[in-house]
């Protein structure tokens, strides 16, 4: 993954389902939507308070909080638990590449 990005487990109702991608300070908010869309995500909700994007291919979701810059990566519940960390790392790397 590109420098400055860090992936950590995040709160979820199921084990290893949600992950937090810490963004480097130099990533501007204006870059995010285009980066998400570049990875095949489509906005489901884009309010000033919260954005939620979804990708049909693997049913992954991204939730972003503009006021705190929290970015949550959501792996789909049908992905076996053991494969979720790998899926999250792969998605994080893809987004980091789009944003670098």
């Amino acid at each position, binding site marked *: 993954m590109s420098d400055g990005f860090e992936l950590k487990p995040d*709160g979820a*109702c199921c084990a290893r389902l949600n992950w937090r991608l810490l963004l480097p300070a130099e990533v501007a908010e204006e870059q995010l939507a285009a980066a998400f869309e570049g990875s095949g995500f489509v906005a489901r*909700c884009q309010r000033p*308070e919260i954005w939620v994007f979804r990708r049909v291919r693997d049913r992954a979701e991204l*939730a972003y*909080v*503009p*006021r705190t810059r929290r970015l949550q990566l959501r792996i789909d*519940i049908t992905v076996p638990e053991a494969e979720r960390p790998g899926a999250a790392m792969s998605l994080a790397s893809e987004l980091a590449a789009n944003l670098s």
Partner: protein
Amino acid sequence: MQADDLKLSRVEDYCLTFLEDLPYVYHCHHYNLFHDQTVDDALGEDAGRELRMVASREATYPLIQRCCATAGALTPAERLETAAALFRWMGHGDLEFAVQAQGGEVRGEHLHYGLSWREKYGSGVRRTTPADAFGAGFAAAATEVAFNLPAGELAVEETHCVALREPECDIHLAPGGKRDLGRIRSERAEILSRLGATFGGLDEERIAAIGAGLADFVRGAASDERGLIRAFNVYVTRHLAAYYNTSIYRAVRQVEARMPQSSPAAEWLFREAGHVCVFNTFGNVLLSPEWEGLIGPLSGLAEDTLSYCCAIARGLGFGRWTLAEHVPGKRLVLRTPATYESIFDLCNHGASTRGRCYILQGAAVALMVLAQKVPWTESPSLTPEFYASLFSAGPLPWKVEETRCIAKGDSYCEAVVTEV
């Protein structure tokens, strides 16, 4: 199906939500699985599953009828399509009907109960009976509505289930149903006519604003193409209150009639469902990006946690939970002019001799636990182990008594939490 295709209403005075004039609430899979398990624990597996199936059929038959009327669905194919869309909108998964008036087969994909049971317990527990009594009951009701059959005409059985480590869920319908289903009294007009005056409590302005905002947000949360709703860190269902209430209240009355010595244990389990709900659903909502964006980061202050939990309950349609008193760590009085539980019990069983808001009772204690014992600012992981450390590691330092209950004829419900 979108929210605009349905007749939805919310009565802010009581924070109750209605779908086609029938009360509905939001619950996540942790609560849903626990609820079903408590019914089975109280009655035994076979009787529990039968009761849950009946509860589903009785609750969903009028709902599907009304949705078909709202949608103008006249033919069996149109009605089955409407029912399947409704099922997805409710977050219960996808049903594919291959049925006639004499029955047939219904294939279920991503059914909420089976899928989430496999996710939660599948790696450690071998299940021997199917998990989707609600889905099977819904499928039976939908087929009966589609072909203008009376409720209960068809026999129904879930023959395959992903919770049994099978590749899909299958539901078989055939002639020979018992046709002895009861009629649930769960109408918006009757419920509202029997409730007393509304009121507020401590921190009312903030709780009311957050609760109304959450209700608006969750109303717009769409299910995906599989019929799953993901929001606020949880997979959630829009569920008929009548399903929960019919199964719980009939179960508790059966226990009271046949095994009165077991009533306290059964009621303890029903109350524990409130712990499960608050820890998993309320807790995950609080830690979610949606909450952080809409409300803000958590302070970890006990009074904030309590206010937030009351707002969440209101947003989910549980009732207008208010904080009547709070002495940190010592006493909490939760009061509400309505819950989705007690008014149902009153309408269907008449005045009770005891408090019947099991979720409110369990939740009141759980609110105290969340307020006093969870380090919210450290973003804790709400794991089963953490739950066990909070609720099962030893006797809880607080007890609860439901001192007022609409089911008893009181004008409001009140749960009082005090130190042991």
